[in-house]
């Protein structure tokens, strides 16, 4: 009897466990990484689990080779991922650019810790939120999902693979040390209830195949190594045939498409959670761990008669501009708690400037508490 790969059932586990199981449920069969806190327990889980489900786990010499091998595996037709934290992410930057340029589906999990440099290896932060958006040089759009619970570590990892496959783009899972290590209930559904997406394959014979010619959705069908298409892909600017072309026209068209294939499909990519927003005068905008505190703040505030609500960003990139703009225009006060010196607030401000927007940066170790956020509301609304 073959055991199912997906471990359907209820668990009380850490976020990193949930992430690993989510990846397996999504069809990931190649995991490559370098040890780093607080992502190492994902590698440990994958080292145990990958061979059980017929997949590959490898530990390589650094984060550069980890992501490069993921890109190689993806082009060999296997769903692949890596996980890391700040310093490792910094090493991956050039390879992220290659994955974007060659439109390689892959997933990168970043368990944020305090930085810059070695920073606080065992403490949570949200200091990489702009880095994951802008890491690589050049023009592009990227997808980033920010789980705020153990359950979402599972659910959003599946979604990350699906989006990566569909749009042929590296997709980030952006969490932090708290979500990585917190134990909570996880429910893994029956395998048939899990929706997975695979990349589009070419429908034309090899002689007619142009590896970077997009369909109407701006995403080109992807042939993989060993399938007889004998394609060529390069990090150089390339035309639809994949051949290098240094012309201004090709550079313009390629970078426009790399951006537009994400921008045009925002509706499908972006999800936010709206919590008590209908009549909210004060709106907290948060993602990840601080959104947990913010939810509590809303509960306490409502009990006190304050009209508080929460807009939780589940998709951080592409930034949910429209959702934020609408809420910001209707609110009297916006609070943005985040575990950094104030990064995502720049996007909130860019989306609108009608209501006062108050930054609540918190750096170092403790995430913002419900009462701290409440105090800011009370101070600014009385």
């Amino acid at each position, binding site marked *: 009897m073959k055991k199912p790969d997906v471990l359907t059932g209820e668990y009380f586990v850490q976020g990193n466990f949930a992430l690993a199981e989510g990846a397996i449920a999504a069809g990931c069969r190649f995991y490559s990484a370098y040890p780093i806190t607080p992502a190492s327990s994902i590698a440990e889980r994958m080292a145990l689990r990958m*061979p059980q489900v017929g997949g590959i786990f*490898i530990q390589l010499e650094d984060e550069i080779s980890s992501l490069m*091998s*993921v890109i190689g*595996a993806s082009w060999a037709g296997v769903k692949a991922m890596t996980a890391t934290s700040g310093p490792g992410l910094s090493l991956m930057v050039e390879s992220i650019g290659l994955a974007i340029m060659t439109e390689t589906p892959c997933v990168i999990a970043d368990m944020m810790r305090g930085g810059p440099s070695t920073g606080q290896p065992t403490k949570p932060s949200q200091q990489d939120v702009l880095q994951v958006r802008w890491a690589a040089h050049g023009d592009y759009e990227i997808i980033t999902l920010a789980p705020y619970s153990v359950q979402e570590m599972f659910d959003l990892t599946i979604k990350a693979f699906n989006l990566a496959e569909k749009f042929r783009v590296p997709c980030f899972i952006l969490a932090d040390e708290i979500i990585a290590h917190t134990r909570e209930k996880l429910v893994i559904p029956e395998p048939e209830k899990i929706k997975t997406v695979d990349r589009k394959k070419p429908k034309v014979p090899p002689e007619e195949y142009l590896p970077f010619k997009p369909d109407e959705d701006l995403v080109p069908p992807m042939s993989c190594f060993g399938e007889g298409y*004998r394609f060529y892909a390069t990090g150089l600017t390339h035309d639809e*045939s994949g051949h290098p072309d240094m012309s201004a026209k090709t550079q313009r068209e390629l970078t426009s498409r790399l951006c537009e294939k994400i921008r045009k499909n925002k509706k499908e990519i972006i999800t936010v959670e709206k919590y008590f927003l209908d009549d909210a005068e004060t709106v907290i905008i948060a993602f990840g761990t601080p959104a947990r505190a913010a939810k509590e703040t809303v509960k306490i505030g409502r009990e006190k008669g304050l009209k508080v609500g929460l807009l939780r960003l589940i998709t951080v990139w592409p930034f949910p501009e429209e959702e934020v703009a609408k809420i910001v225009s209707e609110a009297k006060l916006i609070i943005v708690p985040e575990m950094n010196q104030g990064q995502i607030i720049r996007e909130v401000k860019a989306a609108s400037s009608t209501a006062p927007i108050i930054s609540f940066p918190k750096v170092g170790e403790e995430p913002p508490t419900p009462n701290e956020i409440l105090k800011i509301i009370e101070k600014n609304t009385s």
Partner: protein
Amino acid sequence: MKESIKHLTNHERKHPLDSYLRKGMIPHIWCPGCGNGVILNCFLQALKELHFNLDNLVVVSGIGCMGRISGYINADAFHTTHGRAIPFALGVKLAKPELKVVVFGGDGDLLAIGANHLIQAARRNIELTVILSNNFNYGMTGGQCGPTTPLNAVTTTSPYGNVEHPFNAVYLAAGSGATYVARWTAYHVRNLVDSIKKALLKKGFSFIEVISPCPEIYGRHTKHMNAVEMMKWLKQASIIQNKIDPIKAEITQNIIVVGEFVDKEKPEYTDLIWGKIGKVERTYHKE
């Protein structure tokens, strides 16, 4: 015979290896007299002699003049970032072990920015064929000194003479665990073809260093030699010494020891990984 060739236009002339070249990518970017063309020719010749099915081949390269080679071969091919061809190739090989994966790179690509990946892959003994084109400098960026540039050589970034000691690439690869190691020059065409054939059939990490003339940059600026003089130099300087210990495979500008230095057996990485997966999977499903 000669007569009929004369009357053909360039367009009509067919080379016996034409079907091994990717359409639309020729002419290549290399300078006249560059050894990279010789390496490409020898590689294609080896494929032909082995009757190799190009659908089972993946060619991976990094950045530099040699990095462009992947575009010219009519197989699945990927031009990665500087120094990172080996870890990319490793991912491909593990994910689809039935494919033959070949990495090409220059001395900057494989011995400077990507040197760690080279020694780690050799240590793992993964079945990859890595072909190094060593021209003693960074050609594409204009002749800067690099990890194989001889001590005291004058280059664009060592105008007062190079102060660094060069790598001996075959000794490095052998010491790291490669199971097939050879060195030839662009002059040793027949030996190189034979070595590439052996490397392609090797169950393990195979490494071939090719001393490659770069007449346009290294030849012009450092050696003050043209393409023909460089070829003569390679012929005169090289000594064939098969089977000698790679530590003794001397490489200076006056003596270039060439030959096949290592050909041994050792458990291969892809086999070891997939063997483990098979075992774990069986026990897991029995539990």
